[in-house]
């Protein structure tokens, strides 16, 4: 049943590409695909690939589909370079885009259904699927913005953002240094280590622990970012106030998680340590801390995103004339949205890299944990 249904979709994709040849591309007077021999050839090849993919073996069909999608995407992007098409695109153009879309979807679906024997191949596929999906999302964004002629003031195309990003690397580096290195990192290190130390002390003195755990849980649920204006008032406009906000925001998740982790060691292990005559320091080093590691890394990961949010929000309340949050609010006010998006891309890359580094460190230190045994 299923292959028949997919075969129909492949035919639809092929037909869509072929229809783009005859249906007008633009509501403005523009040359059709018949007048552009190079693109016409590519379109026909893409349509042929889609049509043929319906008949060959699944693995080959995946390769053919993606080859067709690449050609199809190239054709549509090349058409957008023509000013007569960009902004006034109509049926013919969108038929090609939609044909690419459903072909790409089928390709990804077939790729997701492949279950290779080797582990490395499975991992490569698990990595490739979201990458292909993301790449196609960017393609759709680009085509939609430029095809419909959305004013760049409202929504710039990814290519425009990339150009802006490359053109203002110096400014981006300055903002990154101010917000991330000075504000986020210093606050993160101080806040996490303070939370960790207090948790270790609270674990040693049970009374303190019993008092701090409910309070910590309570405070973790509060909108702590609200202290940003107070910190700006206390520590001034420059990075120390951002770091202070980050310290307060990261402290409580770390405290609560580390306390939970230190209590995670089992009775049997504790009894064993006692029967060895181990002191508190030794038990802490050899039993409690290793057992708490997954919890500590959980807090480190939560904090890596919280810290960034805290620092950027604090910049809304006053900054020197640099920093990611500052630039975003200033440029959004001037409607220079390509700069804003470039800053968001910067923040996204930095945030993912930050999280990724913490996650890698977690794998390296807690490789023994059941969640990594496969």
């Amino acid at each position: 049943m299923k292959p028949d249904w997919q075969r129909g979709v492949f035919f639809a994709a092929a037909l869509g590409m072929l229809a783009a040849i005859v249906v007008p591309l633009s509501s403005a007077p523009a040359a059709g695909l018949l007048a552009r021999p190079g693109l016409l050839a590519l379109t026909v090849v893409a349509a042929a690939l889609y049509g043929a993919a319906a008949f060959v073996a699944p693995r080959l069909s995946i390769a053919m589909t993606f080859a067709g999608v690449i050609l199809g995407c190239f054709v549509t992007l090349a058409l957008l370079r023509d000013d007569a098409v960009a902004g006034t695109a109509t049926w013919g153009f969108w038929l090609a885009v939609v044909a690419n879309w459903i072909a790409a979807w089928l390709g990804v679906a077939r790729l997701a259904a492949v279950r290779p024997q080797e582990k490395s191949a499975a991992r490569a596929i698990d990595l490739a699927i979201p990458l292909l999906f993301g790449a196609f999302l960017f393609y759709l964004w680009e085509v939609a913005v430029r095809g419909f002629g959305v004013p760049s003031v409202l929504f710039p195309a990814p290519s425009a953002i990339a150009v802006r990003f490359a053109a203002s690397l110096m400014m981006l580096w300055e903002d990154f240094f101010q917000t991330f290195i000075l504000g986020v990192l210093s606050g993160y290190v101080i806040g996490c280590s303070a939370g960790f130390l207090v948790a270790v002390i609270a674990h040693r003195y049970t009374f303190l622990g019993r008092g701090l755990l409910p309070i910590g849980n309570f405070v973790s649920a509060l909108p702590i970012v609200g202290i940003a204006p107070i910190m700006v008032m206390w520590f001034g406009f420059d990075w120390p106030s951002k770091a202070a906000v980050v310290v307060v925001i990261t402290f409580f998740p770390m405290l609560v998680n580390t306390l939970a982790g230190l209590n995670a060691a089992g009775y049997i292990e504790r009894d064993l340590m006692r029967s060895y005559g181990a002191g508190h320091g030794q038990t802490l080093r050899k039993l409690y801390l290793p057992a708490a590691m997954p919890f500590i890394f959980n807090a480190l990961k939560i904090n890596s995103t919280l810290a960034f949010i805290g620092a950027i929000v604090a910049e809304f309340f006053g900054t020197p004339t640099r920093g990611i949050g500052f630039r975003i609010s200033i440029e959004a006010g001037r409607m220079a949205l390509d700069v804003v998006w470039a800053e968001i891309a910067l923040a996204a890359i930095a945030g993912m890299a930050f999280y990724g580094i913490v996650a890698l460190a977690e794998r390296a230190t807690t490789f023994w944990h059941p969640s990594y045994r496969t």
Partner: protein
Amino acid sequence: MTSSALSSGRPAEIRWHPLIVRYAPVIAIVLAIIAIWYVAAVLMNMGIVRSGFEREETPYTIADLISGTLSAERPLLPAPHQILQTFGEDVFGWPVTSPRSLVFHSWVTLSSTFIGFLLGAGFGIILAVLIVHVRTLQKSLLPWIICSQMVPILAVAPIVIVVLGSIGLRGLLPKALISAYLCFFPVTIGVVKGLSSPDPIQLDLMRTWSATAAQIFWKLRWPSSVPFLFASLKVSITISLIGAIVAELPTGAQAGIGARLLAGSYYGQTIQIWAALVAASLLAVGLIGLVDLAERWVGRAMGART
């Protein structure tokens, strides 16, 4: 957790009443925090008060100085009783429709929190259902959803408001959208986990009864995801509140707790900022309490043992 478990194995000398064991440490630490707060207020405000006295060239004693630090008009760190007093005045001292009333501002924030929460939770649930049922989506979309949370999303808040404002959307909806964007993620992740929590044995049983996908969903997957759903809703409703507050900042909004924070920081009204923070905290606690109530109610309706 029993008391002997927490005292790390040492024999307990005295058996305290369980309520004392539970609450005495919390009360002690809260009292300690308040005491430290007062000391910090005296020390931090000392400079301002002393220079005030010296400017007026009035003789002063230590007692004058200390009482001055605890009743300063624009202190660096207001004393807890000052905050509570201002909070009480702001809440009860004005009619609730007045823009000086904290109830008014809380309501503005609360309404966008609620709308955002409903949008976000609904979207999150739909997304989770799709992800559980469509394998391609699970493989392709889920990694991007997780990635999207590593992006400091609040950074997008100002442009979302500016862009939506320029196409004519103003007022509540842009703020609610930011809340929704922030709070859908915990719901999606929690519900995906919940919907896939039934054991393979249970799923096999449904299949031996030749249940349809819809029947498996409504009779097995959905009920077993409810505990996960409520755990995520508790997280996401506070996030929704944070989103609503932050969304009020960049536009210099006229109303809402975020606007109150911004106005307080412009005019150096520290007590007002703290009072707004108290209001925000109470809102957060109240919202979590609401979700908790709903959870108990649903649990009872589903026949959970409590």
